[in-house]
């Protein structure tokens, strides 16, 4: 039997769990753990410059791999600084384990130095949380944390460890718990056979079907099954912002993203469909527009691992609780065995209608109203230069929507963004987490001059650990999405959406030891991007000046149905 201190058990457990990288920041209550970390080399630690960035790094890794990202911070401010990152992961169902130091247990409740009630503060934004009460329970608590974070509907789990649980001189027997069983936590292993059959009947009897898939298909490892099902049926597929890449973006059956900034054809098809298969999606308000006007003619089947996601905002006809992958496989088998085939005539008519809609808007945007670079053009150029095969992270705002609309993701796990919480400052650290774990892959962060400044200090971390991500800064000198809403809803009163005194991003990048390239002419764009991506071992900050007047379209008309959209500044449905 091996005897370890609580601190050694934390690190030893991470080794045994196969964790390669953790992201964090030391401080008083975590110092015993950091000392144990120092005395080994298997678990590598990345010292960030702000704890929020540590959570986004772990999150980026988790989104790219499906495995939990791990964060280590101290008590008090170290812990509270992780909250935005934890909430980001929670809203998008991302597996993450955050280990937070805590003041010694006898001081808890005394308002001790760097004490905060982390269990209380994180409660609404975690899947679960643990407070360690005895050092010998550390391995089992951590095993439970990893198990809960990564199974069922994934999510972040916090483990709060008072400093006296990690005292170096107090040793306890350590055994790696191979398995864990929780009597009150048993995620469903498969869907209900009768319900699956009903969903198949609904699909095969459809005249105007749509498959609507979300982030659950990606995190549930069901992209391949989704593609097979869609191919088998020949039905149109639309993805949510979180689901992009689950079905190939360049496939003719893909009708684009749906929702507030979804494609015209996807939103029109949703509104007019008579059968809707929702998979690992949650009928978010940014998808449905007014719930009372949502898909008025559709019978809806919904597959989700989380029963609470089903009929939460939109009542559904065929609920299926289960892992999306196994449910889709069962559906494929039933369809293959069925004597009934999709109604070919109806489907032909449906596709010709969808193709009509495609012609109406088709992602076109004006380039003749200015000599400035259009943000959409940057994404299209980025797509070409990276052969459509990069890991693209984004921050939040117009640039995020342009990236989602114009970069065609053919693979899952490639499009990494904060969809649910909409966290500015997410994209850059997320890109770092991915690049660190996939050093041979191209990783670019599409951002804006607003978002990038929310975690720009991490340029320093990139230098220390040699993390050569590419930053594509769509610089329009204003908080573009806020400005767009102000243009549309507040008679262009640009209240505090203009950023004065922007730094010289080129000099800033250089000050941190990186490369900066400024682009403000259309003809320079693609050559500059080529140069940027040719520098494989350097972080390159591309500061690209784009048209500040540009808006993201299509855009849902508030409180309307899915088909009610602005298609340009002057044209609406």
């Amino acid at each position: 039997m091996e005897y370890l201190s609580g601190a050694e058990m934390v690190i030893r457990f991470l080794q045994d769990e196969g964790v390669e990288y953790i992201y964090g920041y030391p401080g008083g209550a975590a110092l015993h753990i950091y000392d144990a970390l120092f005395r080994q080399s298997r678990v590598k630690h990345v010292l960030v410059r702000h704890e929020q960035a540590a959570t986004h790094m772990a999150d980026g890794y988790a989104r790219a791999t499906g495995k939990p990202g791990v964060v280590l911070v101290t008590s008090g401010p170290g812990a509270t600084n992780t909250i935005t990152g934890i909430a980001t992961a929670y809203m998008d169902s991302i597996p993450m384990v955050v280990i937070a130091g805590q003041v010694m247990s006898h001081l808890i409740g005394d308002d001790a130095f760097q004490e905060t009630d982390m269990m209380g503060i994180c409660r609404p934004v975690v899947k679960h949380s643990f407070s360690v009460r005895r050092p010998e329970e550390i391995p089992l608590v951590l095993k439970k944390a990893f198990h809960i974070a990564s199974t069922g509907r994934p999510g972040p789990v916090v483990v709060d460890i008072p400093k006296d649980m990690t005292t170096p001189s107090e040793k306890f027997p350590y055994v790696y718990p191979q398995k864990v069983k929780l009597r009150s936590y048993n995620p469903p292993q498969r869907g209900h056979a009768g319900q699956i059959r009903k969903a198949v009947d609904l699909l095969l009897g459809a005249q105007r079907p749509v498959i609507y898939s979300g982030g659950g298909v990606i995190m549930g490892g069901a992209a391949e099954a989704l593609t097979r099902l869609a191919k088998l049926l020949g039905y149109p597929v639309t993805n949510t912002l979180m689901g992009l890449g689950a079905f190939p973006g360049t496939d003719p059956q893909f009708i684009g993203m749906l929702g507030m900034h979804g494609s015209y054809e996807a939103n029109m098809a949703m509104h007019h469909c008579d059968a809707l298969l929702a998979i690992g999606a949650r009928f978010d308000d940014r998808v449905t527009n007014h719930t009372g006007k949502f898909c008025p003619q559709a019978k809806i089947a919904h597959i989700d691992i989380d029963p609470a996601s089903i009929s939460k905002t939109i009542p559904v006809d065929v609920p299926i609780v289960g892992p999306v992958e196994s449910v889709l496989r069962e559906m494929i088998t039933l369809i293959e065995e069925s004597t009934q085939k999709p109604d070919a005539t109806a489907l032909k008519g449906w596709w010709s209608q969808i193709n009509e809609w495609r012609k109406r808007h088709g992602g076109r945007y004006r380039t003749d109203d200015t000599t400035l670079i259009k943000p959409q053009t940057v994404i299209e150029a980025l797509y070409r230069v990276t052969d459509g095969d990069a890991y693209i992270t984004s921050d939040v705002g117009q640039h995020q929507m342009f990236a989602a609309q114009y970069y065609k993701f053919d693979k899952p796990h490639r499009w990494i963004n904060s969809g649910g919480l909409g966290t500015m400052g997410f994209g850059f650290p997320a890109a770092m987490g991915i690049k660190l774990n996939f050093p041979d892959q191209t990783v670019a962060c599409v951002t804006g001059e607003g978002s990038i400044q929310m975690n720009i200090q991490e340029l320093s971390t990139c230098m220390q650990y040699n993390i050569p991500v590419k930053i594509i800064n769509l610089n329009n000198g204003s908080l573009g999405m806020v400005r767009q809403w102000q243009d549309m809803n507040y008679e262009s009163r640009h209240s505090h959406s203009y950023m004065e005194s922007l730094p010289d991003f080129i000099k800033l990048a250089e000050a941190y030891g990186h490369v900066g390239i400024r682009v403000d002419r259309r003809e320079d764009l693609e050559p500059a991007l080529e140069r940027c991506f040719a520098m494989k071992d350097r972080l390159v900050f591309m500061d690209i000046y784009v048209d500040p007047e540009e808006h993201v379209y299509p855009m849902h008309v508030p409180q309307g149905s899915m088909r009610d959209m602005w298609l340009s500044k002057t044209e609406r449905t």
Partner: protein
Amino acid sequence: MRRIISILLENEAGALSRVVGLFSQRGYNIETLTVAPTEDPTLSRLTLTTRGDDRVIEQITKQLNKLIEVVKLVDLSEGEHLERDLLLLKVKAVGPQREEIKRCVDIFRGQIIDITSTLYTVQLVGTAQKIDAFIAALGEAQILEVARTGVSGIARGEKILAL
């Protein structure tokens, strides 16, 4: 519609705050809440009453079931059930009112469990409705203090909420 939800909860620190937090976080309302350990010391039984249409109640029970520490849950109001609320009440009792209040307590099958020269302390067990009725029946008597436990409940007959 009023619902009675009974939960077997891991008897652990912080478990109750997750249940209560869920209600405030998602905008649901708790009308009453009772909680105590069961015959199995690792489990607490929590009973709460809330209001909502079928869709809201469905969401509440689904969200509660997602909490890792919720072991089992039943909506008692879906079937035949027994519910009891315990009332402790201090009422001013002087002069002719002393006899009047005692009669009223007897009619409602309550007990006077403590007296002073000027007041009675009354204990009454019953449905929430019965207790409301008793308080109303005291009429002009001066009620000084009311302590109610909130509803506790159990299913009728063979149905059992256990592991």
